[in-house]
Structure formats: C-alpha cells, structure tokens
C-alpha cells in the first residue's frame, strides 16, 4: 500500500512539472560561440542576453562557450553526429566547410533582402559562399596598427603612410631605455607564430604590397601572387624586420596574439598589427595606458602598394535542422540592434556590422577607434574557399618562418608556398 502511494506522488509531481513547463511554453535556444569565453566580452554578452530575455520571456538562451582554437575540432565533431546547437559561431575559416557539409541555413530564406542589405557588404561577403548568405554578421574587427601615442609624441613622430616610414619609426623607438647596454624596448610587436593569429596578420601586410595570396582571375579561376615580385617583397620586408633591422623583440615565432598583447601591456613594444578589440584587453591589464593607445591604418608599399584592411567578420550560422529558426533569427537580430551593438562596441571595441551604426557618432567619434574607422574604408573581403585556413594557418606561416630561421631564401620560400597553394587549388 505504502509503495503505491509513493508511486502516486511521483506520478503526480511528474504531471505537475510537465504541465508547468508546457504552460510557460518557454523555448530554449542553444547558442555556441567563442566570444563568451573572453573578457570583457563575456560581461557584455551576458548583459545583452539579459535584455533579450527580458523582452522575450518565452525564449531562454542557453549559451555554451568554446575557445576559438578548439572550435576547429569541436564543430565538425558535433556536426558529424548531428548534435550541433541551434546557433553557432561562423567565421571565414569555417564558412567554406559549412557550405560543404551543408550545416548552415541560407539566411536569404530567413531574413528579408532589405535587412541583409543593411549590413556592411564586405562583412556580409566574408560569410557568403556561392551567393548563399551562410551566417549573420555579428561584429567586425578591422585590422590596423595600434601604437603608443605618448611615445610617438615624445619623439615627435606621426603615423606612417608607407612601410619605409614605418621602419624609420620602428628604428627610432627601438632602444635601451634604462641604459644597461641591452635593448629593452622595440618598435614593433611582430607575430610570426605558426597559427592563424600570425598568418592572418601577415596576409594583410602581404596585401599592402599589391599582391594577393589568393584571388579570382578574369577567367574566374583562383590564382596566387605569392611568387610574384610584390609577393617576394612582402616576404622580404616582413622577415627583415626581425633578421635585418631587429626592430622586433627576440623570438617572434613564439609570439602569438596573447604574447604580443603582453608585450604591449608591459611597455615592451610600441606598435602591433591588430584590431580594436585589443585596446580593451590592454587597458584592462594595464590601466595606466588608458588614453595612450591609438591606431592607424596599415601602411603600404611605396610602389604598387595600397592600404588594406581585413575585417575578420564574426558571425553566427543557424543550424538547418533546428526547429527554432524563428527564435534564432529574433535573437540574432537583437544582437545587432542599435542598443546591443553600441553596448558591445563600447565594452569590447569590436565594431558593428550594420551600416547605419558604423556611421553613428558614438562609433565615429571615439578617438581610440578613429584609425580603425578609417581602416574600414580600405576593407577587402577574403575569399571564402574551404582550404583558405590551410593557407592562412600553415602555408604562409611556414614560408615566413623558413625565411626567418634561414632554412630558405625568400625566393625558395615563395616558390614552395606557391607550389603548395596551387596544389590545394587543384585538389579542390
């Protein structure tokens, strides 16, 4: 008898719980991305989510974080088991693969064309494959050069236009500040690591010399300029910053993004190629630098070169198998609405993707962002092919590293890189 009443109680509770769940009809939207594991991005995002849930009490956001470097293994693993969440991060590295695997909804079916036209078109094109819009741009981090305003003023320097001027400045700022006989401050925090953080920065420097690591030619085929005079010049200039001019700290191949940031934080270097998101990170760890950091667009090569900025668009894809596409669309729209995007921009420095906001005074008038706003005028999208990340994280880094360690000459390295890129193009 006793047992039975227990069973009744359990059953009753179950039914009650079920009913209460159904009566609220809350939908849980699973979102996975990498910015949630960073700071201060986490705080900003949590605040936006809170606002969203307040406005939409019927939707709950279940946020999962994955560090960017680990996302490469995690997303395909989830995909092959059909276990992807409703919404997940999408960047240029992934987008070709997403299309290939069929794991991103074509957003033209979800959003109106008018809405999509409201995005900065360069950022949208970095998430578009064969005309299909596969991800919803969340923010861009246009690349430029961060510099120490105070040191520039001390020496009476102004931001450079060309790489030659850049080198002069770097030389001037590289010195022994405490007089112990060894250099303790360098002009430039060079990232020459064998990963995406080194490779993606190099690609932009490369492009300012006038060549393209990968571009469509007139016949609509992909070709590479790594082994052209412009390409070789880029390799030569970049590597000689270390080997010839010694304006960068020793051991640049150990310097990945985190290390480079440390160099800026600890007053070891004066300049660094990066985006506006770095400013917050630097000041958070060394508050004395508040107001002392500015930015200018990447210099260019004297003949045949041009200013360039890569946007590094970061967006979200919607799982084609998700039955919550509508809620997902609602959430993504909320992420980039005026209020959220301004909050996001203010807290993290990452730039909005809606054209209207990019021109707003809140963004345009921030002195520390001015250089990046200018850089956005020079933005060019990167190609969205599935093998692009191999070029960025492996082929180009191998090339510049082999020159720096003296294993290959500029010509040999450029030739080898060209061979590898061509064989990648052919394989696909």
């Amino acid at each position: 008898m006793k047992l039975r009443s227990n069973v009744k109680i359990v059953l009753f509770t179950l039914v009650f719980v079920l009913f209460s769940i159904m009566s609220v009809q809350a939908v849980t939207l699973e979102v996975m991305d990498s910015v949630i594991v960073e700071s201060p991005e986490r705080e900003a995002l949590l605040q936006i989510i809170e606002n969203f849930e307040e406005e939409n009490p019927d939707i709950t956001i279940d946020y999962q974080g994955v560090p960017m470097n680990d996302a490469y293994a995690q997303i395909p693993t989830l995909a092959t088991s059909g276990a992807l969440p409703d919404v997940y991060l999408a960047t240029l590295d992934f987008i070709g693969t997403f299309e290939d695997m069929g794991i991103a909804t074509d957003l033209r079916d979800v959003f109106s064309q008018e809405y999509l036209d409201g995005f900065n078109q360069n950022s949208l094109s970095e998430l578009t494959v064969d005309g299909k819009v596969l991800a919803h741009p969340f923010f861009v981090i246009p690349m430029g050069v961060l510099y120490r305003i105070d040191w520039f003023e001390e020496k009476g320097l102004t931001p450079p236009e060309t790489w030659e001027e850049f080198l002069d400045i770097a030389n001037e700022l590289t010195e022994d500040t405490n007089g112990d006989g060894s250099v303790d401050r360098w002009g430039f925090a060079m990232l020459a690591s064998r990963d995406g953080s080194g490779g993606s920065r190099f690609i932009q420097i490369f492009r300012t010399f006038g060549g393209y690591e990968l571009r469509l030619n007139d016949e609509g085929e992909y070709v590479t300029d790594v082994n052209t005079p412009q390409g070789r010049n880029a390799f030569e200039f970049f590597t000689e910053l270390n080997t010839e001019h010694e304006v960068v700290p020793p051991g640049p191949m150990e310097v990945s993004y985190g290390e480079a940031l440390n160099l800026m934080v600890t007053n070891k270097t004066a300049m660094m190629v990066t985006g506006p998101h770095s400013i917050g990170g630097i000041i958070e760890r060394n508050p004395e630098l508040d107001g002392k950091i500015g930015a200018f667009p990447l210099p260019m090569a004297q003949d045949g070169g041009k200013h360039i900025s890569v946007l590094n668009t970061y967006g979200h894809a919607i799982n084609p198998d998700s039955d919550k596409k509508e809620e997902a669309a609602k959430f993504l729209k909320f992420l980039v609405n005026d209020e959220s995007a301004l909050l996001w921009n203010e807290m993290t420095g990452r730039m909005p993707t809606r054209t209207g906001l990019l021109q707003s005074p809140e963004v345009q008038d921030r002195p520390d962002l001015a250089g990046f706003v200018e850089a956005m005028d020079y933005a060019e999208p990167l190609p969205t092919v599935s093998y692009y990340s191999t070029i960025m994280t492996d082929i180009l880094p191998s090339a510049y590293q082999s020159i720096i360690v003296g294993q290959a000459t500029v010509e040999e390295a450029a030739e080898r890189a060209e061979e590898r890129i061509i064989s990648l193009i052919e394989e696909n």
Partner: protein
Amino acid sequence: MLKKMKINNILSLIILIFASFMVLFPVAWMLSTSLKTMQEMFVTPPRWIPQEITFRAFARIWTDYPFVRFFYNSILIVSTTTIVSLFFSSLAGYGASRFNFKGKSSFLVFLLVTQMFPSVMLLIPFYRVLNILGLINTHLGLIIVYMAFTTPLCSWMMYGYFESIPKELDDAASIDGCSKFRTYWQIVLPLSLPGLAATGIYAFIMSWNEYLFALVLTTDDSMKTVPVGIGSLVGQYRTAWNDLMAVSLVASIPMLIAFFFLSKKLIGGLTGGAVKQ
C-alpha cells in the same frame, strides 16, 4: 674496498642531486610565478623571489573561474574510472592468468595493439558512440571513454601480478568448494593489494591528466574537467601565467600526497606486475 664504495656512493648522490634539481627547479619556478603580480611576471631579469608576494592567484582560481566545479567533475570522473577499471581489469587479468581459453594470447596482444592508433582520429568515432548512447556532456560518458584508455594496460598489469601469485592457492580453494568467482574475490584479490594499488595509481594519473577527449566530448561549461580548465587559461586572447601556475600546483597536490603514501606499494605492486610476463 670501503673507500671505493664511498666514492661510488658520493657519485650516486651527486647524480641524484642534479636530477632532483632538474625536477625541482621548474616546480619552484611554478610556485614563484603563481605568487607574482601581473606586472612582476614580465620583469626582466626574472626574480625567483617576488618583491610583492601575493596569494591572489590562488583565490582567483576559485572565484574568477569555475574551478570548484571542474575539480568536482574531475574527482568524480577519475575516481569512478579508477575503481571500475580496476575491477574490470582485475577480472580480465585473473581470467587470462588462471584459465586457458581460445584466443587468450590474441587477447593479450590486442590489449597492447589498442595503444597504437593515433588518438586524434578516435575523437569523431568516440563522439558518435557517446551521442548514440546519449552520453555527451555527462560524467558517465567520460568515464566510459577513460575506461577504454585505462583498461587495456591495467588488465595487462593485473595479469602480470596474478601470474606471480602461486596457482596452488586457487586449487586449494576449489578443493574447499569455493566457486571461481569467490576464489578470485576472497582469496586472490586480497593478496593482490600491492598490484591493485600500482594499477590504480596508473589509471588515476592517466585519466586525471587527460585533455583532448575531455575537451571535445564536453560542450557544456559545467561538465569540463581540470585539465580542460587549465587549457582554457591559455585562451586565444590572454595567458594568465600566474593563475595557470597556481591552478596547476593545486591540481597536482592530490597526486603528490597519494604518491608519498603509496610509493613503496607502487613499486612493490609493479614488482609482481608488469615485470613478469
């Protein structure tokens, strides 16, 4: 003769001291880094004893990161793995040591062969299996995966240890009317405690330190383990060396303590174990 002995001993001691120095200086550096402030970490030349000693990193790992939860996960997963895989592999070791059956030698060879496939390629199949069983983001899922790593060698070690225990004991027990399972459980197992301890330590260390699978097979923050948590301190955007060193020290302490008490047993356990095949 006596003099020769002494010289020999002194030479040995010198080698031991040098080796211990090589082991301890990185650990000391770890401790030193964990006590430094952000600014002092990057001072050149580096200081062994920080000017400003702060224990904040040790506090931060509990307040700023969910390491309480990570430790809970790790302890739960690893201790369960250790116990269950000890039980399973002692069964297998006993079976292989006491009974003759078809395919026995293949089974023993197979245990070694399992170690030879690159683990990065096991990620996707593992994920699929766990997904089918509905065990992604569960403690049980990781426990099963870790058992797949630990049981082959644990079985091998236990097999070796059982081989060193005279089989006459079993025969005597079976004359007394003990069933096979009771013989194993009540007679042979209690005699194998050193072997179990050695095997257990091995399983514990192996699963406590595992990184790659825990990383990929858990997507939920609340299910991550200590090594994954440590790995996440080396984010793309920052490397907080002091916090990293602090949590690494804390993560190693349980094993250091365990080893200090068990080191004699461990070596004794191996004496009968892996050694005598």
